[in-house]
């Protein structure tokens, strides 16, 4: 059973073993390129590169499964609204009463959808292959305060727990006679009895957890030592700088009108 709010999938591919900062750079640069590059073949190229990386990490099938539910409605909505309403619209493909489907808007909508697909693929590539604990550790080794490291790690753990608590609360309140089905006003009235126990018990837990952490020495002003070494390499460093330069170059080229 997955316990943290993490999509991390165990694996041993080079991507799994890469330094978290390398993967973070890769993800951010891929997103940057997807939005800087102006024409669809280039944006598609970024997507294909990301897909092959997903395949290399052995998570392509999982990505397609998760992404489909996310991307299909966005694509439809973007294509529909932009083809109906976009300042660049000129060429009518299909008249629809007072509105009309336009070629330019359709292209713009689909290009935007393609960019979002790149963004989603890049994000998933990162989260499928990176353990959140490793990311937090890597950031802390680069100087992030351990308190913020705690916030990041704890948030990822606590969200799914609170969703489980929400299920238990729903059971308890229904057993007391609370209806959670039916017309909208009745469902709306159920919101507070379902949410408030969660808030209150979360505050109880916060107090107890804060006390327990103090008792374990949390917040001591001591030099924090690395928990474990996260392997980095010259190659990865070169790759990180190379990717960053590529984004800068693409931006410059775009601004200069070379692309």
């Amino acid at each position: 059973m997955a316990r943290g709010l993490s999509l991390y999938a165990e694996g041993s591919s080079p991507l799994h073993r890469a330094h978290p900062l390398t993967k973070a750079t890769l993800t951010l640069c891929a997103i940057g390129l997807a939005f800087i590059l102006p024409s669809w073949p280039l944006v598609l190229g970024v997507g294909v590169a990301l897909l092959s990386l997903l395949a290399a990490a052995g998570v392509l099938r999982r990505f397609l499964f998760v992404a489909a539910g996310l991307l299909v409605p966005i694509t439809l909505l973007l294509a529909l609204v932009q083809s109906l309403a976009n300042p660049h619209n000129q060429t009518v493909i299909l008249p629809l009463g007072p509105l009309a489907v336009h070629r330019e808007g359709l292209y713009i909508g689909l290009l935007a959808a393609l960019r979002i697909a790149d963004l989603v693929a890049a994000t998933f590539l990162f989260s499928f292959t990176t353990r959140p604990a490793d990311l937090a550790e890597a950031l802390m080794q680069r100087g992030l305060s351990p308190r913020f490291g705690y916030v990041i790690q704890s948030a990822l753990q606590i969200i799914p727990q609170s969703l489980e608590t929400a299920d238990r609360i729903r059971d308890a309140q229904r057993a007391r006679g609370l209806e959670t089905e039916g017309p909208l006003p009745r469902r709306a009235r159920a919101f507070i009895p379902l949410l408030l126990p969660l808030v209150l018990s979360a505050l109880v837990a916060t107090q107890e957890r804060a006390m327990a952490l103090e008792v374990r020495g949390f917040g001591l002003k001591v030099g924090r030592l690395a928990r474990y070494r996260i392997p980095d390499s010259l190659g990865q460093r070169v790759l990180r700088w190379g990717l960053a330069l590529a984004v800068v170059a693409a931006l410059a080229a775009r601004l200069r009108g070379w692309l």
Partner: protein
Amino acid sequence: MAWLSAFKFRLNTLGIVLIPVCIAIDWAGHAIASGLRLPLFLDSIGTILGGILAGPWVGGLAGFITNLISSGTIDPIWQRQPRGWIGIWILCFLVASIGSTPLNIGLYQGQSGIPFGDAIYTALVNAHFPTWIAAYVDEAAVDLPDKLITALVAVLIYQGLPRRYRALFRLYQPDDDAEGERSPARA
């Protein structure tokens, strides 16, 4: 301007532990709302509550991390008065709608991705309004009722909390350095 002291950065262990909890409440609020099939997000209740309880940094960091709006720009003491509550709503609404619009323009050609708002967008663009106005109204039409109810719920929850929790999490006191009377609790 005494209330400016609320922005001084400080976080104790309790504040640190509260941040992920607020994020979790954001998520749970949204999960419960969608479980009940309510036509609202209600996904920033924890953020606002964190802001009211422990001040701008807790609320702000929670909001920032949930990648949502920040309640962090309001003074918590001011928030405890009724006229402040309307302020919370207006502010959350403004922060959410103004913050989201450039993002929507950059990512979604100005759409909010909510059919109701996007219908307004379509109408405005076809009436030859500039895209950024259409994009803002699209987002605002979605945020206005949602943030109103979110802020209302958060304030209601805050008022319903046992006094000891209201006091326990308060990192900012009107009389900030007063010793002793910090929080009532029982054991």
